[in-house]
């Protein structure tokens, strides 16, 4: 089955796939609570029964250490599924809305309904989680869904095809493998929603394609996520958390990973020493040999990172690391100090194990540095200064922020996960996933009693007064107007 799909998936195939799915959901099967729960339970089973296979695929694609695969992908996907199972009944309930005297008597509610047939385009760095998590949201909201995994993580892509085929309802949930041609064919179709995770460049292409069909989109993009480090911190803990948010996160290849650090000129040497020590504790003296760190995903990305590193006036700023092995696609944790502002490494999202440290005179100056760049998906601050924390939250904009730690905030399902400006639009996780893939239909129930003739023509001056009173002043104003008094 997977072989056939790989043969040729062009626009005609894509069109008939969408047509087929639309036909299949006409019976409202996917709308039912039972169907959604059965699929979510199957996903949970799929994850639990195939942990080893998933970890192996992640290792094949990224040399992702088993433990990292577990913490960052498998367990998050499982929790997401379990939360949806637990909360789905509650999420599906209509929400009561208040009505005012102007529409008395009436009652109102907001009903969540599926959007229909949705497309999830996933990416290569957390290829399992970033495929399954949005699919969980789409299914929880009662949609049919097509998943397009990234071809840059082929082992995971192919595993997803097999697993979905085995565990999920083919009539409503499908995987389409492929690269640019297949993705373009999919994007030509009319979807009811598209969730895309990836680069800003392709995000633009996705939104432009969606615009042809007026399809709403969620774009989970990236950016340069900064970590500001103040001097009044527990340096060891801060350093380890930066390491966790950089090199433990797919070796820096993560949208929410720490891209660069800002600290004061005075504190930088201490920070660098602390990083040196903690990196050795984590990955040993020879990080190139460590099994606890992912490799660079592909030769393309490897050469891209090399180019960033080898730029004039950048290569001489390396204070730690810099080793690389093209054959094994390995690059050591590398720290650079005060590279030029206009260097490529400070313009592009790094997405790799290179950590520039930029120094400022005063830690407060770091806000301007961050705000002069496009808004990132996440921003981090390490400090014990309450005023600085407040100022950071008020004055820096990002998709999300975490103070005194890195990356954890995206595991909290009560917080929305999404970007702003260049880092994206829309959000998901937890109930936000359910909402992301739902249409919130406003429903107003009126009765035939209490029909106010002032609504209808022929319009007169007295009707105008009553109308004013009813809309603006509520019941008292209306009563007053009825007995001839008014504000005018």
């Amino acid at each position, binding site marked *: 089955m997977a072989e056939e799909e790989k043969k040729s998936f062009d626009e005609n195939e894509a069109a008939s796939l969408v047509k087929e799915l639309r036909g299949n959901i006409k019976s409202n099967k996917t709308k039912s609570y039972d169907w959604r729960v059965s699929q979510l339970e199957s996903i949970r089973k799929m994850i639990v029964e195939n942990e080893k296979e998933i970890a192996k695929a992640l290792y094949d694609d990224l040399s992702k250490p*088993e*433990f990292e695969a*577990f*913490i960052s992908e498998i*367990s998050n996907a499982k929790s997401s599924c*379990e939360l949806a199972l637990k909360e789905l009944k509650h999420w599906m309930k209509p929400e009561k*809305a208040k009505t*005012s005297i102007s*529409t008395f008597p*009436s009652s*109102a509610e*907001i*009903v969540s309904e599926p*959007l*229909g047939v949705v497309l999830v385009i996933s990416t290569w760095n957390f290829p399992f989680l970033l495929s399954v998590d949005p699919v969980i949201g789409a299914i929880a909201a009662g949609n049919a869904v097509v998943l397009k995994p990234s071809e840059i993580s082929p082992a995971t892509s192919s595993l997803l095809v097999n697993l979905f085929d085995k565990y999920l309802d083919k009539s409503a949930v499908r995987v389409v493998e492929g690269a640019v041609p297949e993705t373009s064919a999919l994007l030509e179709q009319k979807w009811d929603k598209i969730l895309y995770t990836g680069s800003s460049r392709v995000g*633009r292409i996705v*939104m432009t394609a969606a*615009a042809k069909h*007026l399809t*709403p989109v969620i774009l989970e*993009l990236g950016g340069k996520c900064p970590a500001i480090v103040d001097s009044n911190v*527990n340096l060891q803990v801060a350093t*380890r958390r930066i390491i*966790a948010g950089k090199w*433990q996160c797919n070796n820096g290849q993560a949208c929410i990973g720490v891209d660069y650090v800002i600290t004061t000129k005075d504190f930088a040497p201490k920070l660098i020493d602390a990083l040196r020590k903690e990196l050795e504790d*984590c*990955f040993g003296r020879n990080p190139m040999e*460590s099994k606890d760190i992912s490799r660079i995903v592909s030769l393309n990305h490897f050469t891209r990172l090399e180019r960033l590193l080898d730029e004039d006036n950048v290569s001489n700023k390396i204070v730690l690391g810099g080793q690389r092995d093209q054959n094994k696609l390995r690059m050591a944790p590398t720290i650079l100090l005060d590279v030029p502002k206009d260097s490529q490494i400070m313009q592009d999202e790094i997405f790799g194990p290179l950590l520039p440290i930029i120094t400022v005179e005063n830690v407060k100056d770091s806000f301007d540095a961050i705000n002069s760049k496009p808004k990132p998906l996440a921003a981090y601050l390490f400090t014990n200064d309450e005023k600085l*924390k407040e100022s950071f939250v008020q004055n820096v*904009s*990002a998709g*999300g*922020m*975490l*103070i*005194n730690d890195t990356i954890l*905030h995206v595991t*909290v399902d009560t*917080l929305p996960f999404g970007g*702003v*400006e260049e880092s*994206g*639009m829309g*959000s998901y996780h937890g109930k936000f996933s359910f909402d992301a893939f739902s*249409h919130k*239909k*406003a*429903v*107003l*129930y009126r009765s*035939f009693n209490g*029909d106010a003739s002032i*609504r*209808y*023509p*022929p*319009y007169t001056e007295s*009707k105008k007064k009553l109308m004013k009173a009813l*809309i*603006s002043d509520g019941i008292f104003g209306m009563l007053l107007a009825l007995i001839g008094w008014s504000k005018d």
Partner: protein
Amino acid sequence: MDQIKVEKGMAELKETFSSGKTRSAVWRKTQLRALIELVHENEEEIFKALHQDLGKHPVEAYRDEVGVILKSADYSLSRVEKWMAPKKGHIPLLFFPANGEVMPEPFGVVLIFASWNFPISLALDPLIGAISAGNTVVLKPSDMSPKCSSFLANAIPKYLDPKAIKVVEGGADVCEQLLQQKWDKIFFTGSQRIGRVVMTAAAKHLTPVTLEMGGKSPAILDVTSTSSNMKVVAKRIVGGKWGPCCGQACIGIDYVLVEDEHSSFLIGSLRRIIREFYGENPEESISLSRIGNKNNFDRLSRLIKDPLVAASIVHGGSTDEEKLFIEPTILLNPPLDSEIMTEEIFGPLLPIITLNNIQESIEFMNSRPKPLVIYAFTKDETFKKQILTHTSSGGVVFNDTMVQFICDDLPFGGVGHSGFGRYHGKYSFDTFSHEKAVMHRGFYPEIEPRYPPWNSFKLQFLRLAYSFNYLGLLLLLLGLKKKY
């Protein structure tokens, strides 16, 4: 308005936004109060402009525009501070001590496109949302309602902060210039055709958009269950068709679905009410708006020129090009593939489509693009449920028309081709806000197993931690849990 002016204006708005002035509750409330003052002090002028542009009677103008804005501004004024406050998010014990919140922040510099049919409310209502959320704004009223556009261009700088809120007048070329800029959000009300243009332009800059468009909003009439209330039903249908800007409203009734055996009864009732509302000679009624512009007039005239469509007219049909007047017109079963039944009518032509059984209305609607609203007149609770669960639309109103527009607690927006995103009430505030997730942690205690080098103890710890199995964790730490 040339490119340089647009860029200069935007630069000023960006600067104002960066200064942080619009972030304060005080600034936002001052602007909202000023807007209320603007409307109060210029009511007569607004009525005059609406009458000149669209022939709207002051009562209709108050009901659909002035009153709506006053209510909306007042609603936001009394709640904006509450809306601005961060919302707490529960953080798992695992991360203790920690707290989390969702903090709304303004996007920055936003662009609002208003439409011509409700040129005041569709400009100022989104503006209320944009201001409440703390953004700086460029408002682009429609050039097809020129008197209202020019009213807004003159009045707004007098009442609102000119460094933060600007009105830009003009036609398609100005729209194009505006769309080339990088906005932090675009809010668009209008047609699907232009909606596509707006979203395509927005995609270049990854600008999030809200598109409020239209569609063919049907009214389903289940005569069997509502026959004793037919007078009110007929009033509400007439009110929901010709009341709002003479049928030129996204939420106006586009067409009616009724059972074949009841069609004459319905037509008779509607004709009676039309006479009651608009007199024997609707052309002379002051309670009926005009067709908004020659383009729309020509388009509507063309719809009924189709001979098969013209043959289905059972009431009305007369037009006056000079006065831009089209009589309230009822048609019975025009061909389903005619333009009047495939395009959004946006005018005073009401097709009545008959079915054998009113239940068929569900399939009828589902085989067509999702409308902005479905109006259903029925007292049959089962049928109501079926409509609710078996159809999709922006919204649904049972047993009335139009009133959902003034419910501040109901989101107003479309789905599918009728649009995406929503506003009104707090939804306006939300639509112009970025919801920033913020989490705070302390440095202690540290979860050691987070860090490499990895071993099976750490894995076991994390397994238990991530399923929030605190007892298991405790046992593990005390050495009492088996490792697998």
